[in-house]
C-alpha cells in the first residue's frame, strides 16, 4: 500500500518527525489560504499522485511540471487551477497519466547537505536495520555499488529497541555535531517509533537535509506498510487511495484475491502463490507472456473464482487464459463450477486451457465437459502451458 506525500507529512507531524511546513489543498481557494498561512517562506506547490518524476512531468492540458516554485499566494491559486482535476503524465505513470485531485503547498527549504536515512526489516537477521549515508539525494543502490564504505548500517534489537548510543554513533559517523546531532537524534528516535508503531516494512527518507539556518528535516519520504498488520491500523487503511491503484487490483482485493497485473497476453488463474508464480514462469518458458499473477488461495469459493475470471477477462490485452489448479484440499469441482458460471455470464471470446489435478478432480472435469464451453484440457503444467501459448499465437 502506498500513501501520498501529504499523508506522509501527517504521519511525520503525529510522531514529531520534522519536515518542511506544508498543507494539502483540494481547491485553488484552499491553495491560496495555505500559501497565505506560510507567508514569508519561499513556497512550492506539488501535485499529489503516487508516481515519481512529478517535476519533469506534464499535464494533458499542456501545462508543464507537477512541481512549481510560487512567488505569491495568488500564484498558488493559479497553479492549483491548472493542476487540480487535470491529468499528470510522468515517467512512472505511463501514457494514461494520473488525475490530480489534491495539491500540497509547502515550504521550499534551502539545502546545506543531503543525507540518506532509512529503516527496514532485515529478513536475514529478523530485526530492523537503519541504513544511513552522507550521500543523499541520489539512488542509494548506486552509492552502495560505487562507494559501499559510505553506507552505514545499525541493527536494532527487536525487544530493546533503538538505544541512545546507537543514535549517537550514527550521528557521529554522518559527521553531525552539536545542535544538529541533537536534532538528528530526536528525529531518528521518533522516526523509529513511527516505524514500529505503524508496522512499517520500509521507511525511506531521501534526502534528509540540513539547512543553512541549522535545521535537520525529512524532505522526501517513501513508506511501505506490512499488509498483514493493517488490521490494527484503521487510520492507515483510510489513507489508501484506490484511485491511484490498478483498477483490476482494486477489484481483486474486494474479493480477497491476490492479483498483480502485468503486460503480457496470457492470463492465469491459479491456487497458491508459489504455484501461481511457477505458472507465470512456465508460460514464459514456452515463449508466452503472462498477463497477471493471480492466486485464488486455498479455500476459494465459487463466487471468488467467478470474480477472478471476470477480472482477467476485463483486461483488453488478454488473448488466452490458463487455469492451473492443484486441488490438494480444495475441491476441483468448486473451481470448475466457478469457471462455468463466469463463462456463461460473460461469454468466452478467447481460448481457455484448464489443468485440474487433485481432490475431486473427476467431478471437476465432468462439470467442465458437461458445459458447452469450449475448453482445452491440459494434462500437466507443461502440457497446459504449451497448449495456451500455441492457442494465442
Amino acid at each position, binding site marked *: 500500500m502506498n500513501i501520498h506525500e501529504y499523508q506522509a507529512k501527517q504521519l511525520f507531524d503525529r510522531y514529531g518527525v520534522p519536515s518542511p511546513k506544508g498543507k494539502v489543498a483540494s481547491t485553488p481557494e484552499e491553495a491560496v489560504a495555505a500559501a497565505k498561512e506560510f507567508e514569508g517562506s519561499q513556497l512550492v506547490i506539488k501535485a499529489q499522485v503516487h508516481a515519481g518524476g512529478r517535476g519533469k512531468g506534464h499535464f494533458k492540458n499542456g501545462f508543464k511540471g507537477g512541481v512549481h516554485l510560487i512567488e505569491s499566494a495568488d500564484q498558488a491559486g493559479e497553479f492549483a487551477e491548472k493542476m487540480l482535476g487535470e491529468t499528470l503524465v510522468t515517467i512512472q505513470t505511463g501514457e494514461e497519466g494520473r488525475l490530480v485531485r489534491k495539491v500540497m503547498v509547502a515550504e521550499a527549504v534551502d539545502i546545506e547537505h543531503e543525507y540518506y536515512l532509512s529503516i527496514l*526489516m532485515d*529478513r*536475514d537477521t*529478523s*530485526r*530492523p536495520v537503519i541504513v544511513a549515508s552522507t550521500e543523499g539525494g541520489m539512488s542509494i*543502490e548506486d552509492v552502495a555499488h560505487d562507494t559501499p564504505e559510505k553506507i552505514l548500517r545499525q541493527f536494532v*534489537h*527487536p*525487544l530493546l529497541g533503538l538505544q541512545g548510543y546507537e543514535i549517537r554513533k550514527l550521528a557521529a559517523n554522518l559527521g553531525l555535531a552539536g545542535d544538529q546531532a541533537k536534532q538528528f537524534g530526536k528525529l531518528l528516535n521518533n522516526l523509529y517509533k513511527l516505524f*514500529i508503531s505503524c*508496522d512499517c*516494512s520500509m521507511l525511506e527518507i531521501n534526502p534528509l537535509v540540513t539547512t543553512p539556518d541549522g535545521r535537520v528535516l525529512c524532505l522526501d519520504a517513501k513508506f511501505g506498510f*506490512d*499488509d*498483514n*498488520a493493517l*488490521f*490494527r491500523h484503521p487510520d492507515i487503511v483510510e489513507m489508501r487511495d484506490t484511485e491511484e491503484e490498478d483498477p483490476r487490483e482494486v477489484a481483486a482485493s474486494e474479493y480477497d484475491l*491476490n492479483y*498483480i497485473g*502485468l503486460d503480457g497476453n496470457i492470463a492465469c488463474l*491459479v*491456487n*497458491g*502463490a*508459489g*504455484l*501461481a*508464480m*511457477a*505458472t*507465470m*514462469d*512456465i*508460460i*514464459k*518458458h514456452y515463449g508466452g507472456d*503472462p498477463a497477471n*499473477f493471480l*492466486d485464488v488461495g*486455498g*479455500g476459494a469459493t465459487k463466487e471468488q473464482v467467478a470474480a477472478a475470471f471476470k477480472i482477467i477477462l476485463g483486461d483488453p490485452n488478454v488473448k488466452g487464459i490458463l487455469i492451473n489448479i*492443484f486441488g*490438494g*484440499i480444495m475441491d476441483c469441482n468448486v473451481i470448475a463450477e466457478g469457471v462455468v458460471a463466469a463463462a456463461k455470464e460473460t461469454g468466452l471470446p478467447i481460448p481457455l486451457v484448464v489443468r485440474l*489435478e*487433485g*481432490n475431486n478432480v473427476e467431478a471437476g472435469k465432468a462439470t467442465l465437459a458437461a458445459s458447452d464451453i469450449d475448453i482445452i484440457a491440459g494434462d*500437466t*503444467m*507443461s502440457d497446459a*502451458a504449451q497448449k495456451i501459448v500455441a492457442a494465442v499465437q
Partner: protein
Amino acid sequence: MAILIDENTQVLIQGITGGFGGRHAKLSLDYGTQVVAGCTPGKGGQTFEGKVPIFHPVSQAVSETGATASAIFVPPPFAADAILEAVDAGVELVVAITEGIPVMDMMKVREAMKGAKSRLVGPNCPGLVTPGHGENSHGGCRIGIAPGYIHKRGNVGVVSRSGTLTYEAVYQLTSLGYGQSTCVGIGGDPINGTSHLDVLKMFNDDPETEAIIMIGEIGGNAEAEAARWAKDHCKKPIAGFIAGATAPPGRRMGHAGAIVGGDEDTAEAKKKILAECGIAVAETPSDMATTLLEKWGK
C-alpha cells in the same frame, strides 16, 4: 526414521474448534495421525469429534496427553501469542499454519524463542507430512493442511516455501513411483522459524532420506545459504526449483516474503547459485521430479 515427525508423534491442535482448524484436524485423524489434544481458550473440557479432548491452557494439554508437536490454526492477531504459549508449555515442534501474521509479531517471537528447546516451522506454511505405510500413505503423521493421499512412503525429502508447489512435486514423485521420507513446508513469510538450511541438515542426517527436492522462490537469500552449505556438506543428490522468474521487482507476489528487492533476490541469481553448488535445477515446475531422478541416477 524420517525427520521431525513420525507415525508415533502425538499432535496437539491449537484452534481446533475453528472452521479451518477443525476441518484439518479431522483430515489428520482420517489420515491416521495421532491427534491427542485440542486447545481453544474457554472450551476446555469439551471434546472434538467425540474423541479428541479439548484443553485450556496449552500447558494442561501437554501435561495430560504428552503431546510433543502442535499445529497452530489461530487467527493472525492471536497467532504470535499462541506460538509463545506452545513454546512455554515445552512443545518440541510448533507448526504455525496461520497466514497473515504481522512481521513485527514474528520478529518478537523469533527473539523470544532464542534459547528455547522448541522448534518453530512456519508461519504461513502447509505444515509437514511423514507418509505412513498404508494405502494412500495412510497411518502417517500429517500436521497442517497438505493433502495426505498424494503422498507415498519412501526416500525423497521435500522442503519448500510454497504449499501447492510442494504438492506438485510430491504428486510428480508419487506418480513416478517414488515416495517421500518427510515433506516440510517452511512457509512464505520473510521471518520464519525453520529455514531451507535447517531442513537440509536434517535430511542429510536422516538415513531414510536418500535424495532431496528443495523448492524456493524470489526474495531473501535462504535458498542460496542452503545451497552453499550443501556444496560442501550434503552427500545426497538434490534437485531445486525457484519460482518467480517472471515476477516484477518490488511487488509482493502473494507470499509476504516473495519480493524481489535486490540483484541477489531474483530467480535467475538463485538458480545460478544452486547450479554452482551442484544442485540440479529444474527448468520448469513440471520437471521437479524428473530432474531429481536424473541427478539421482534412477
